[in-house]
C-alpha cells in the first residue's frame, strides 16, 4: 500500500496552516464565483491563475482547486433560492430545488444539495485516490500514437455523448484546435496563421478565451433578462441540517446511482452538465415518487447534485493521470500546471509525488471545508445576490479585464477578451457548446505533437494507429463513442419518439 502511505504524506502537506488557509480562501472565493452570474468555475480560476504564478505550486493548486469546489457548491445556492442556475450543471437542481424553496423548505433543499454535493465529490475523490495511480502507471507505456488515441477518445466522446447539435460540437472543437495552432509552431519553429500580425505571434492564450467566452458572455446573457433578481429567503440552523441528514439514508439508492453516473461521466469527458441531467432523469424513472418530481421532491435535488459533483471531481482524474482534462475547469487547472512547469500526465505521479498526493489529500479536506463553510454562510451568500446588479456587473467586468491583462501584460488581450465575449454570447444563443472549444484549445498543441510524432515514427502511415493491441483498442473505443450518440438517436427515431427527452429538458430551462 505504497499509495496509502503517499496519501498520508499528502495529508501532512495539505494540513499545514498555510494550505488550510488557502483552502478556506479558495472555497469562499469559489462560492462567490459560483453565486455571481458571469463568474463561473472556469473563468474564476482563469482570472486568479496569473496571481498564483509566484506561489509554490502545491499551495497554488490547492487554492485553485478549492475555488473549483466552492463554485460547485455555490451553483446550488442560486438554483434553489433564485431559480437561476449559477452554473450550467445546476440547471437540473432548479427543477425541484426552487419548488421546495417556494414551499418554504429552502433550508432543507440547500442542506440536501450541499450534502449531496459532498457525497458526490467524495466518491469522485475516492475514485481518484485508488484509480488515478493505476491509470498513470498504465499510461507510462504510452507512446505518441497511444496518446493521440487517448486524445481522440476524449474528443470523440465529446461528440458522441454531447447533448448539443453534433455538427456544432465538431465546429467548436475545430475552432479550439485552430486557435491553438495560431502562432509559433513548436516543432518546426515557423509562424502559422498570423497573417503578418505581431500580436498574433504569441497565439491565443486559452485563459483570455475562457474569460471572454465564460465571463463576459455570461454577463451579456444575464442582463438580457433584466437587472433585478428576486429570490427566496433561507436561514439554515443546525436542527434543519440534522433533520435533513437523518432523512438521507432512505435515498441511498439514488445517491449511489447518481454517484456512479457522475463518476463515469466525469472520467469520460461527458461532463458535469450531462451527468446532472442523467442523474435527475434516472432518479425520476426509478423513484417510487417519480411523479412528484418537479414539484419539490428532495430526491430531485439529491440526484443531480450528487451526479454533478461526482462528475466535476472525477474530471480531475484523467487530467492528473493522463494530462487530459474532463471539463472546462479541469482544462484551466491543467493550463495552470503547465505554467508552473509541471507536465500533467503519467510522469507526474512518478516525478512529483508530493504535489500529486498533496492535491488529492486537499480534495478530501477542501470538500469537507466547503461543506462546513457553505452550510454556515448561506445567508451571507444569498445576500450577495441582493446587491444590485448594476453594481456587481461592472465590478465583474473590471475584474475580467484585469485578469485578461495580467496574463501577459497586453492591452490587446483585453480587446481579444471583449471579442470572445461577443462570440461567446452569440455561440451560447445558437447552442454552440463552449467546453469542447476550451478543451481543444488547451490540448490542441499536444494532440498535434502526438499526431505528428506518431506519423514521423511510422513514416507517414496511418497504420501506426492500428499497430498494437493497446492503440487499436483505444481507437476502436473512440470510434464507438463517436457513433454512440448518432446510433442512439437513430434507434430513438425508429421508435418514433425522436429527441423527445432533450426537448422537454430544454423547455423546462
Amino acid at each position: 500500500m505504497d499509495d496509502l502511505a503517499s496519501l498520508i504524506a499528502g495529508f501532512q502537506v495539505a494540513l499545514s496552516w498555510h494550505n488550510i488557509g488557502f483552502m478556506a480562501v479558495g472555497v469562499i472565493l469559489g462560492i462567490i464565483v459560483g453565486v455571481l452570474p458571469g463568474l463561473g468555475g472556469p473563468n474564476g480560476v482563469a482570472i486568479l491563475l496569473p496571481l498564483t504564478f509566484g506561489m509554490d505550486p502545491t499551495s497554488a493548486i490547492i487554492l485553485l482547486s478549492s475555488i473549483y469546489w466552492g463554485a460547485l457548491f455555490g451553483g446550488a445556492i442560486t438554483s434553489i433560492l433564485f431559480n437561476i442556475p449559477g452554473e450550467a450543471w445546476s440547471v437540473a437542481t432548479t427543477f425541484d430545488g426552487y419548488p421546495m424553496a417556494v414551499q418554504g423548505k429552502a433550508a432543507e433543499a440547500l442542506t440536501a444539495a450541499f450534502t449531496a454535493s459532498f457525497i458526490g465529490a467524495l466518491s469522485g475523490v475516492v475514485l481518484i485516490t485508488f484509480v488515478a495511480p493505476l491509470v498513470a502507471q498504465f499510461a507510462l507505456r504510452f507512446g505518441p500514437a497511444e496518446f493521440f488515441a487517448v486524445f481522440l477518445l476524449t474528443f470523440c466522446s465529446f461528440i458522441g455523448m454531447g447533448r448539443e447539435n453534433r455538427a456544432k460540437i465538431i465546429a467548436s472543437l475545430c475552432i479550439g484546435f485552430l486557435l491553438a495552432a495560431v502562432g509559433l509552431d513548436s516543432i518546426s519553429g515557423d509562424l502559422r496563421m498570423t497573417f503578418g500580425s505581431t500580436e498574433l505571434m504569441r497565439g491565443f492564450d486559452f485563459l483570455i478565451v475562457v474569460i471572454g467566452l465564460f465571463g463576459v458572455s455570461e454577463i451579456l446573457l444575464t442582463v438580457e433578462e433584466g437587472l433585478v433578481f428576486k429570490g427566496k429567503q433561507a436561514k439554515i440552523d443546525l436542527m434543519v441540517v440534522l433533520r435533513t441528514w437523518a432523512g438521507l439514508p432512505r435515498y441511498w439508492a439514488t445517491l449511489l446511482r447518481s454517484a456512479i453516473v457522475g463518476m463515469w461521466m466525469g472520467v469520460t469527458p461527458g461532463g458535469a452538465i450531462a451527468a446532472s441531467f442523467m442523474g435527475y432523469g434516472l432518479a425520476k424513472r426509478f423513484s417510487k415518487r417519480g411523479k412528484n418530481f418537479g414539484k419539490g421532491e428532495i430526491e430531485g435535488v439529491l440526484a443531480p447534485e450528487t451526479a454533478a459533483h461526482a462528475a466535476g471531481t472525477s474530471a480531475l482524474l484523467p487530467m492528473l493521470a493522463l494530462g487530459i482534462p474532463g471539463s472546462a475547469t479541469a482544462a484551466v487547472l491543467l493550463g495552470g500546471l503547465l505554467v508552473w512547469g509541471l507536465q500533467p500526465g503519467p510522469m507526474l505521479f512518478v516525478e512529483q509525488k508530493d504535489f500529486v498526493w498533496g492535491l488529492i489529500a486537499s480534495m478530501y479536506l477542501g470538500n469537507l471545508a466547503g461543506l462546513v463553510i457553505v452550510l454556515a454562510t448561506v445567508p451571507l451568500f444569498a445576500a450577495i445576490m441582493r446587491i444590485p446588479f448594476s453594481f456587481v456587473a461592472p465590478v465583474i467586468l473590471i475584474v475580467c479585464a484585469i485578469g485578461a491583462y495580467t496574463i501577459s501584460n497586453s492591452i490587446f488581450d483585453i480587446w481579444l477578451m471583449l471579442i470572445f465575449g461577443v462570440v461567446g454570447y452569440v455561440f451560447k444563443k445558437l447552442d454552440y457548446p463552449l467546453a469542447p472549444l476550451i478543451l481543444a484549445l488547451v490540448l490542441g498543441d499536444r494532440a498535434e505533437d502526438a499526431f505528428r510524432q506518431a506519423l514521423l515514427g511510422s513514416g507517414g502511415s496511418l497504420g501506426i494507429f492500428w499497430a498494437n493491441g493497446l492503440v487499436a483498442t483505444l481507437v476502436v473505443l473512440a470510434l464507438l463513442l463517436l457513433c454512440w450518440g448518432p446510433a442512439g438517436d437513430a434507434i430513438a427515431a425508429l421508435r418514433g419518439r425522436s429527441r423527445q427527452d432533450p426537448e422537454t429538458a430544454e423547455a423546462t430551462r
Partner: protein
Amino acid sequence: MSNTGEAETPEPGISRRPVEIATALLLIGLAGVVLYDSHGRGAGWDGGPQNGFFPARVGWIFLAASLFILWQSFRRPDGIFVTYEQLRQVVRVLGPLVLFVALIQPLGLYVASAIFIVAFMAVVGTSRWWSIGLTALIVPVVCFWIFELQFRVPLPKGPLEAMLGY
C-alpha cells in the same frame, strides 16, 4: 432553448435563422482562411508532416461541419434569436464596456474603470448619483490596493497615476 421564442407571446426581435446563417457563413470563411494559409505553407509530407499538415486536416473537417450547420439552419423551424428589448439591455452593457477597453490605453485601467462604472450605472439608471460616485471612487482604489500594492501586479497606468507618483 430554440423553442422559448415560440412558447412565449411573440415579442419583436431579430429572428434566429439569419444569425444562424451568418455565423455558419463566417465559420465557412474562417475554414477557408485556415485552408488557404495551411496549404500555402505546405500541408503535405516533407521528410515528416509539414507545419500545415494538422491544421489543414482540422480545417477540412471544420469546413464540412460548418457547411452542414449552414444546411441545417435552413431546415430548422425559425425562432427569435434576441428580442429588441433584450438587445437594448445587452447594448447598454456592451457600449460602456467598449468605451472602458478603449480608454485603458490613454488613461490607465484605474481611471478607465471609474469612468466605466459611472457610464454603466448612469446608463442603467437605477442608482442614485451619490452611490454611483462612491462606487466609482472605491472600486478602483480597492483594485489599486489589491493589485498594485498587495500582489505587485503592474496594471496599465495613465497620467493620473503618474501625477500621484506611481
